[in-house]
């Protein structure tokens, strides 16, 4: 074969290569991390629409119920997802929820602090705990799994010991009366869009109580926070420099450091993020229940990680999305509430949760191989 014909065949090959590079819009969509969770949510809604469509699950009251549960989980799932994209885990989220609840309740009830001050105190403690988690992981280079597992026990134990020491009990009730005149408590304890629900009630569009007030009184604060956080986290991840640093830190720590990304600072800030999300969760729940419980938030860290994984986060970091985690939380919230409206025994919920996660991990793994596949 002559030199010339060789070069021609090489050229042909290279144009073929370029054609391979063309990516259809469908494939772009398939490559988005949140696709699985979005599809899953739709399936779940179709399923309950068929099985429980006429049971009141999708009435305003029923919908707000499962949205509230989803939103609470979503708040911590989004923070957990961002941390996972940054390449780390936080297993102390659940314990932090209990700890934060106590940090709000004990100063407010036993030390006579105004409620707003105890809430700020709880957030300050969250920053400290998050910073401590982060600095330990960054400085020692130990897996965050181990460091935060230790923190899981330390925080839960400290919460129990301190509470019993100060109060002699494991629960601190009596917060509800303090909410009324507090300058910031309404942020975590007020239903919004009440006028809308009153109006819908007056038009007889939603269910009413016997006294004529609507059964669903407004959008719970968790839902507002959840939506706001989803938007905020997505903006950070997709639109800011810091977001790029999160992906880079989780994708390749060494490489990111070599090109000047402050990996340590990024990771520490993300740990502070999960601790603060746990505290927000605690605020909403404690003010809603009017009491703090030392066992509050138990196992929530695993649910948050599960929701993030179902939402498309890779366990190895560097890939995932906040919207995905939000849908992941929506799936769990919908199923955990929806199961009451069906004939299925609620004992089966955890089976579903585990199966869902397995499917998600297998699916995500496949996607990752697709994305990183070299020609």
């Amino acid at each position, binding site marked *: 074969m002559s030199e010339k014909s060789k070069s021609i065949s*090489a050229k042909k090959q290279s144009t073929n290569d*370029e054609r391979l*590079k*063309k*990516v259809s819009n469908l494939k772009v969509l398939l*490559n988005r991390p949140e696709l699985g969770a979005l599809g899953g949510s739709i399936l779940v809604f179709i399923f309950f629409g068929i099985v429980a469509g006429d049971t009141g699950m999708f009435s305003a009251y029923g919908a707000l119920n499962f949205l509230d549960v989803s939103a609470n989980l979503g708040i911590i799932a989004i923070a957990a997802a961002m941390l996972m994209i940054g390449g780390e885990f936080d297993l102390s989220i659940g314990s932090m929820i209990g700890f934060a609840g106590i940090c709000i309740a004990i100063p407010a009830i036993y030390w006579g602090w105004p409620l707003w001050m105890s809430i700020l105190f709880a957030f300050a403690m969250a920053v400290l705990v998050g910073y401590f988690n982060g600095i330990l992981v960054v400085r020692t280079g130990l897996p965050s799994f181990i460091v935060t597992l230790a923190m899981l026990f330390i925080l839960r134990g400290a919460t129990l010991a301190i509470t019993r020491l100060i109060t002699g009990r494991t629960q601190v009730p009596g917060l509800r009366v303090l909410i009324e005149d507090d300058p910031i408590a309404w942020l975590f304890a007020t239903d919004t869009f009440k006028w809308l629900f009153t109006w819908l009630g007056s038009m007889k569009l939603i269910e009413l109580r016997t006294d004529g007030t609507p059964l669903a009184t407004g959008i719970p604060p968790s839902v507002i926070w959840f939506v706001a956080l989803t938007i905020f986290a997505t903006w950070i991840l997709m*639109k*800011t*420099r810091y*977001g*790029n*640093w999160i*992906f*880079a830190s989780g*994708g*390749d720590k*060494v*490489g*990111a450091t*070599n*090109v*000047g*990304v402050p990996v340590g600072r990024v990771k520490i800030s993300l740990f502070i993020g999960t601790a603060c999300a746990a505290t927000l969760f605690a605020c909403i729940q404690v003010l809603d229940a009017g009491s703090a419980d030392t066992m509050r938030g138990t196992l929530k860290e695993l649910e948050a990680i599960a929701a993030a994984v179902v939402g498309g986060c*890779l366990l190895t970091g*560097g*890939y995932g999305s906040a919207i995905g985690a939000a849908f992941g939380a929506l799936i769990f919230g919908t199923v955990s509430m929806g199961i009451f409206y069906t004939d299925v025994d609620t004992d089966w919920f955890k089976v579903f949760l585990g199966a869902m996660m397995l499917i998600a991990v297998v699916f995500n793994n496949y996607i*990752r191989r697709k*994305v*990183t*596949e*070299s*020609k």
Partner: protein
Amino acid sequence: MSENLIEFNGISKFFGKVIALKDVTMKVKKGEIMCLLGDNGAGKSTLIKTLSGVHKPDEGEIIVEGQKIIFDSPKDALDIGIATVYQDLALVPLMSVTRNFFMGREPQKGIPFFKTFDIKKANEIAADRMGQIGIDVRDPSQAVGTMSGGERQCLAISRAIYFGAKVLILDEPTSALGVHQASVVLKYIVKAASQGLAVILITHNVHHAYPVGNSFTVLNRGKSLGTYSKKDLSREKLLSMMAGGEELDKLEVELKEMDRISKN
């Protein structure tokens, strides 16, 4: 003062009792490609790390544009324009071309506290820069993981040049590549040098080094065997200067011997 963009005079580096580098001297001019050759364990990696500010030399000095310079960190080296492209390339396969190109140095727009990563501008620059090398990135938001090894190497080099590299240190840029891919990368390196960069190309592959290099420094067991310009050095001589040269001769003799025995 000096036409050398960068000079290394009598660089030595010790790790405890181990002499990793001893009295290594090299000079690189603007627009020149200097190939640093050596077998495994010759001290190439230690030398690169010393040049790029990871290690401090125990003896000797680094002179950039006539001025003596001491690096305290890789960032110092980067700031005066010495960029190193390591073998791992510092690319994240799961991230897009653009996000990798600007990783750590993202262009921003908007008001303070609400600054956003200017992805549109970044996409344009990344696609343009890759286009200049002849890599048609149709979609700069595609993941780097979908690119070939040669394209990734070019992306890493192109990124270093875009962010103001004057001296480009390339660590084994062709070692993991096939023949075609390697030639694409080498072509790009020549082009970069012709634009006025000083390039230090580290490799153990004489066949890749010889066609593109202007001068050659051979390292053997931590010492420099000297720097030669291309006209004073044949490819064969260069081959035999590398640690493997002698051994390959020996191997040849042994093989001939075996051949002779088997024929008898």
